[in-house]
C-alpha cells in the first residue's frame, strides 16, 4: 500500500472533468435548464439569493445547476461573483409599508387594515406525497379576485400601536448610513444594523436552530408574530449627478416583525420590543428565525441577563456565515502532514516517557499519565 504524496495537475483536471460528468447525471435524461430551476425551484433560488447577498434569480439558478443542487456551494459561487462587482452606492431604504402584498399574516390581530392574506403557503397543506405529481400534468390556474379598494393601504402592524408607544419605535435615521459587512471587517461590539446584515447572510439552518433555542428557554424573549409579509417593493437609488431618486426595479422580500415582551428597566418603561427579519424572495422560515435571534441579541442593549448562546453576539456573528463555516470545516481535508508529523514525534516521546515511568514505578509517585492537552489537532 502506498499513499500518493504528489497531487498532479492532471489529477485535479480529471477530478473536475469527472465532477462535470456526475453533475450531468444520466445523459439519457433531459438536462435541466436554468429557467426551469428559476421557475420550479424558486424557494431554493430565494435562499441562494438571500445568503448569497445578490438579487438575481437567473444567476442563483445557474449557480444551483453548477453546484449540483448543493445550496452552500451555490451560495459560494454567487458570493464570489458578487465580490467582483463594482459598488457604486447604496439604495434608499425600501418602504415595506408600500409593498405589493402577496402574503401577509399577523398572529397578534384577528383582523387589521389591509386584511390577512394567506397567499401561496404550505401552511394548512397536509404533507401527503402527491404521487400524481410524478406523472406531471398542469395544476389548475390560481383563483383571482378584483383588488379591494384599500389594497394599497396595508400599514405595518408595528406602526398601528404607535400612538400609545406600546411598541418601541425604531428610528432608522439615528443609525446613520448602513455599514457594509462585506467592505468593513466585523468588529465587536457590533451595532444592530451590522448584526441584521450578518443574520440575513447567515446560514438558515444555524439561525433557525438558534431562534428555536430561545423558544426553549435559552434566552427566552416571549415572541409574537406581529406580522409576516411577502411581496414586491420598489428599490430607489439617488445618483449623485441626478440629484433625485430613480427607481431601479422591484424585488420580492419577506419581512417579519416579531413583537416581544419587555418588562421594563430603570430607564425604560414596560413596552413591547421588536425583533426584525428580512430576506430576499419568499423566505418565511429565515425571516422568522432571524427576527427571534435579532431580538435575542439585543439583550445587552435592553439590560437583560445574558446566559445563552443566542444572546451572545460574538458567538452568533462569528459562526453564522455558511461559507466561513463550511470552508473551515472542510479545510480539514487539506494535507496537514507537517503538523501531524510534529504531533507524531510528540506522542512517540510521551509514550516512551510513559513506558519508562511504568517500568520504573519506584521513581514515580506523583506523575500521572495524562495525555497532553495538545492544541486543537488540525488547523
Amino acid at each position, binding site marked *: 500500500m502506498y499513499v500518493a504524496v504528489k*497531487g498532479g495537475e492532471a489529477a485535479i483536471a480529471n477530478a473536475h472533468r469527472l465532477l462535470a460528468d456526475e453533475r450531468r447525471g444520466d445523459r439519457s435524461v433531459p438536462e435541466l435548464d436554468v429557467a426551469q430551476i428559476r421557475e420550479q425551484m424558486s424557494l431554493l433560488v430565494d435562499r441562494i439569493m438571500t445568503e448569497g447577498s445578490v438579487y438575481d434569480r437567473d444567476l442563483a439558478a445557474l449557480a444551483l445547476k453548477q453546484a449540483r443542487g448543493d445550496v452552500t456551494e451555490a451560495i459560494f459561487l454567487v458570493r464570489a461573483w458578487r465580490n467582483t462587482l463594482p459598488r457604486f452606492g447604496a439604495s434608499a431604504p425600501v418602504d415595506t409599508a408600500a409593498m405589493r402584498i402577496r402574503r401577509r399574516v399577523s398572529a397578534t390581530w384577528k383582523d387589521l387594515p389591509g386584511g390577512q392574506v394567506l397567499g401561496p403557503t404550505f401552511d394548512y397543506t397536509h404533507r401527503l406525497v402527491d404521487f400524481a405529481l410524478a406523472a406531471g400534468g398542469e395544476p389548475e390556474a390560481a383563483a383571482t379576485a378584483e383588488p379591494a379598494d384599500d389594497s394599497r393601504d396595508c400599514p405595518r402592524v408595528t406602526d398601528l400601536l404607535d400612538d400609545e408607544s406600546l411598541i418601541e419605535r425604531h428610528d432608522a435615521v439615528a443609525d446613520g448610513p448602513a455599514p457594509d459587512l462585506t467592505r468593513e471587517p466585523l468588529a465587536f461590539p457590533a451595532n444592530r444594523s451590522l448584526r441584521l446584515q450578518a443574520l440575513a447572510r447567515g446560514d438558515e439552518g444555524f439561525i433557525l436552530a438558534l431562534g428555536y433555542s430561545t423558544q426553549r428557554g435559552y434566552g427566552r424573549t416571549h415572541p409574537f408574530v406581529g406580522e409576516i409579509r411577502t411581496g414586491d417593493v420598489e428599490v430607489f437609488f439617488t445618483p449623485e449627478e441626478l440629484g433625485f431618486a430613480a427607481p431601479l426595479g422591484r424585488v420580492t422580500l419577506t419581512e417579519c416583525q416579531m413583537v416581544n415582551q419587555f418588562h421594563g428597566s430603570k430607564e425604560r418603561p414596560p413596552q413591547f420590543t421588536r425583533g426584525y427579519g428580512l430576506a430576499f424572495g419568499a423566505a418565511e422560515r429565515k425571516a422568522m428565525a432571524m427576527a427571534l435571534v435579532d431580538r435575542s441579541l439585543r439583550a445587552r442593549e435592553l439590560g437583560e441577563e445574558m446566559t445563552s448562546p443566542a444572546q451572545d453576539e460574538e458567538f452568533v456573528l462569528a459562526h453564522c456565515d455558511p461559507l466561513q463555516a463550511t470552508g473551515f470545516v472542510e479545510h480539514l481535508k487539506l494535507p496537514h502532514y507537517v503538523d501531524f508529523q510534529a504531533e507524531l514525534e510528540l506522542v512517540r516521546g510521551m509514550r516512551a516517557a510513559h513506558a519508562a515511568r511504568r517500568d520504573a514505578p519506584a521513581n514515580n509517585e506523583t506523575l500521572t499519565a495524562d495525555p497532553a492537552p495538545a492544541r486543537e489537532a488540525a488547523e
Partner: protein
Amino acid sequence: MNPTSYEPASGYNFAYLDEQTKRMIRRAILKAIAIPGYQVPFASREMPMPYGWGTGGVQVTAAILGPQDVLKVIDQGSDDTTNAVSIRNFFRKTAGVAVTTRTADASIIQTRHRIPETQLSAGQVLVYQVPIPEPLRFLEPRETETRKLHALGEYGLMYVKLYEDIARNGHIATTYAYPVEVAGRYVMDPSPIPKFDNPRMHDMAALQLFGAGREKRIYAVPPHTSVRSLDFTDHPFTPQVFTEPCALCAARGVYLDEVILDDRGQRMFVCSDTDFCEERRASGHRGHLLGEAPAALSGQPAQQEAC
C-alpha cells in the same frame, strides 16, 4: 519548473481583486509592517476558493503582486500538493505572472505550514496562510477580551498554559503554531508551521506577511526583526530534531515528512521541502533509499540509478 509567463484571463482585473480592494489591503499591510506582530483587521473579501484554504494569503499575494514578480506557492513544504497547485494556477490564470518552484528564483513565496529550507534573502516576501491569527484564541475565545489583552501586553494566560504543559509533561507540549514574541512587544501566532521553523523567523532578511481571510486579519514581521519563541529560563525553547537524514538527499537539520511505504510498518523520512530536496539531488547528494523510493516521491523510477 522554470519561470514562465502566461497570458492572464480576460474579464478580471490583474490578480483578480479590483484596485480599490488592493489599496485597502496594502494599507492594512503597511500598518501591519509598522506595528510588527499586531493583528490589523481588514475587510477580507470572498475569494473564489473556500475560507480555510488560503484566502488570506491569496488576498495578501494579490495585493502585492506585480507583473514582474515570480511566484512560488507551497503547502506542507511542497510545490506539488493539490492546494498549492490550485493557488499557483489561480495566479497564473488571473495575473499571468511567472511561477517557479525554485525558492531562490521567487520574489513572492506563498506558504502554508512551512518556511522553505533555503535561506531567504532581502527583497523576497514570504506570505503565510493563517487559519487562526489569534495566539490567545484557545485560551480566551472572545475577540473583545483578546484585543484587550494584546493592548495591555498581558500575556500571563499564555505563560500559564506553557507552565501547565511543563508541570504535566515535563516539557512544553506545543509542536506547531508555537507562539512567538515579535520585536519585544506583541505575542503572535506564527501560523501552524512546526516549531522547527520558528528560529528562522528571527532576523529574517525577507519580509514576512501573514493573511487570515476568514478571520479578517493581516499581520507582519518586517525584515531583520526579533522573533522569540516563548519559553522559560529553566525550560528553554527547543525545536524538533530528526535523528536520521533525508532518505532521498541525505540532508540533515531539515524538517522531514514520514512516508508510510506499505502496510507492514515500512517507512521512510524525506525532506518536507521538495524543492530543496530536488536541488540537493541535482547537485549529487544521494540518500540511502534514493534508488528504491516510489517515483512519485523521488521524481524518478524506482530501482534506477541516477547519474
